[in-house]
């Protein structure tokens, strides 16, 4: 009996496996993805200044753009020029800031900063190479209209706008 079972098992085991290739297909369409890489935070090095500078315990927000097609998009990144929410501020706030390329996925993008243009607080980059670019937006807010008055206590928030616009 055992011999029969063993023989049948060997016969069944000898049946060739019918393998078939299954294709997996995909299509990468032209797209732009805007990612929050590093959230920003304000440091308060003195009573009248809020800054994203790491040296002052701030954190510079970094936004990442992924584009899958060259010359299809432009990136527009701005630094804030007002608080979106804050305690009541009867005096003026002076804003300064900058947007810079923090990192690129290929060296072909090394000319992005030099080729960019600026209008007010917004810097525009032509994304001429497919890949990933990281942009850093730094901002400094000084309170008191030049008289260095202390910011009132409370939470302060400002918005960085990152836009990816098809060309």
């Amino acid at each position: 009996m055992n011999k029969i079972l063993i023989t049948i098992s060997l016969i069944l085991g000898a049946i060739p496996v019918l393998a078939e290739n299954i294709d997996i297909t995909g299509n990468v369409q032209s797209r732009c993805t805007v990612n929050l890489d590093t959230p920003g935070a304000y440091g308060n090095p003195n009573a009248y200044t809020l800054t994203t500078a790491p040296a002052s315990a701030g954190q510079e927000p970094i936004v990442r753009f992924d584009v899958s097609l060259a010359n299809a998009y432009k990136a527009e990144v701005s630094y804030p020029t007002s608080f979106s929410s804050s305690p009541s501020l009867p005096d003026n706030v002076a804003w300064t800031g900058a947007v810079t390329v923090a990192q690129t996925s290929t060296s072909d993008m090394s000319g992005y900063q030099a080729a960019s243009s600026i209008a007010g607080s917004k810097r525009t980059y032509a994304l001429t190479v497919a890949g990933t670019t990281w942009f850093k937006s730094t901002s400094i807010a000084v309170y008191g209209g030049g008289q260095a008055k202390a910011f009132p206590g409370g939470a302060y928030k400002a918005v960085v706008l990152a836009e990816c616009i098809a060309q």
Partner: protein
Amino acid sequence: MYRSIGLCLVLLSGVVLSHEMTPTYPTWSISGVEGVKKTTMQIWNSRKDVSFYEVGVFNNKWKPIPFVTAYKIIKIDYLSKVNFDIYIRTQDIVEATYVCSLSKLRSNNESKTLLATRICSKFK
């Protein structure tokens, strides 16, 4: 080399907080209503901090163009995508240049900078 490794780590980490809208170059199609055309867009949301996106249609000078959608502010859950139709009068098609989606931010009590993202596709 280090950048490539860094990029791979970021892509594999699965913590990307992103906003994406496709297609890049939408086209108008018949809608079933005379004098009205439509196009279908898709938004992908992987921003945990954002649940709503505002849709707008603009001309080449960024002036708003009248259009209709089910909702101009669309709720999109984290790690999900939403398809939506945009309807526009045939007479406005020549002027309509961009369709954009803008992330809507929530307020909280932390002192920080927030990131608003806007992606615009272009009618060609």
